[in-house]
């Protein structure tokens, strides 16, 4: 990190307001609805809650190169995360800051490790770069979703130190 930053001048975006509190408003007018609708609202509440929980799991991960979070660099946005709780499935689509970013696999690895540590084991997680945003998109995607290579990478102390450093702010 001393010499040759991959992206020396990244654009920094403002952090979004935390929206955790917006979820309960879904049920505010529960008195006005039929029981069947209320069930639907509850289901929606659960989905929104899960969604925000997921987002808060990963939005504060630090960029490997810069003292900013992935959210501030717009590497991930709220749209980046798709959750299907019924099928225990999560897909995260992230956008590297530049299309030749050699840190893309490290960022993807951080996302995967964060979710592995936060979610129940039953979850299947797919991580990918946003279509068209990286020069070696399919190679990055293939590597990030090869669990054997991920397992081997996570036995490499240097890589684990790097990942832990990026993840540290996300545990705050």
């Amino acid at each position, binding site marked *: 990190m001393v010499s040759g930053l991959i992206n020396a001048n990244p654009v920094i975006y403002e952090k979004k307001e935390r929206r955790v509190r917006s979820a309960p408003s879904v049920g505010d007018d529960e008195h006005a609805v039929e029981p069947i609708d209320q069930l639907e609202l509850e289901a929606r509440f659960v989905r929104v809650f899960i969604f925000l929980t997921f987002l808060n799991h990963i939005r504060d991960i630090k960029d490997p190169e810069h003292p900013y979070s992935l959210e501030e660099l717009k590497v991930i946005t709220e749209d980046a995360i798709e959750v299907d709780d019924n099928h225990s499935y999560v897909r995260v689509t992230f956008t590297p800051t530049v299309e030749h970013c050699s840190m893309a696999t490290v960022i993807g690895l951080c996302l995967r490790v964060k979710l592995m540590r936060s979610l129940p084991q039953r979850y299947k997680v797919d991580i990918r770069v946003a279509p068209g945003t990286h020069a070696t998109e399919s190679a990055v995607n*293939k590597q990030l979703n090869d669990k054997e290579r991920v397992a081997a990478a996570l036995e490499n102390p240097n890589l684990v130190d790097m990942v832990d450093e990026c993840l540290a702010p996300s545990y705050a």
Partner: protein
Amino acid sequence: EELYDGNMELKEIQTLAGHSDRVWSLAWNPATGTSNNPPVLASCSGDKTVRIWEQTPSNRLWHCKAVLEETHTRTVRSCAWSPCGKLLATASFDATTAIWENIGGDFECVSTLEGHENEVKCVSWNASGSLLATCSRDKTVWIWEVMPGNEFECVSVLQGHTQDVKMVKWHPTMDVLFSCSYDNTVKVWAEDGTGDWHCVQSLGESNKYYLSLLSGHSSTVWALAFNAEGNRMVTCSDDLTLKIWETDVGGMQSGNDLVSWNHLCTLSGYHDRTIFSVHWSSFYTSSHLNREGIIASGAADDALRFFVESKDELVDGPSYKLLLKREKAHEMDINSVQWGPGVRFV
């Protein structure tokens, strides 16, 4: 641990717990499972250990007989018994392969094979037990000759794969080696009579002049297995398909190394996530439907599936159909399926 009872029903008979991390692979001891010799299997794990399991004849329950530890310093990815069942080879992410000998019921590490640059992914013995093959993330396949006194000599380093090699497997009767890789191909290796080993065929290589381009896998090939006769092979992949390949085994026996394997059919639409493991049963049942044996697949969707050759559509050539699917066979990804020497498998 499940039992196939012949009526297309699956019964889970026991869950073997003991490893503290993901179990990557397992292997049945081929010399066990006879009337006075209870079945034994080995399992290896991300917890850096190997466990040896044995069935108690009286109550048919399995127990852990030995834990092989403090030798590998990282994940043990693969294990394989020698054909005589005396030796167990274990391949590790620590770049070594260890050879264990059963000495009076205790397993001792009698040899360590070094040479690969990084993670060893798989180990396989040939049919006679005279050769051992290993493969690695370093893209190479190594062939080791078994010498007297538990010495192992590297006789060949095979280069040809352009990526991480996931699995090596010897042909069940011939000294022909198969490897599958992250580069989407399966390669066939044979000795030319002077001691030199070469790649004699590459299945699925991206070469527009070969038909195999049309039939090869489009993503990582994780595993392969042979039918009992050795004239058919099944491969499984991250592209969510199983592929069946066929050769003229008579031609192979007559010493023609160039006998090629041809794509027979592709089983697609059955799996939802990566297929990590596939194994072909060597036993036959009375039903004419599965005289070719049953193909079992284990995938990242936690499901276990069985396929048999379908005799209904001979017009279009051989095809295979789904016999049985067990959803949630495990809580997580299924990393390995292996038919036992009798009728059991895990």
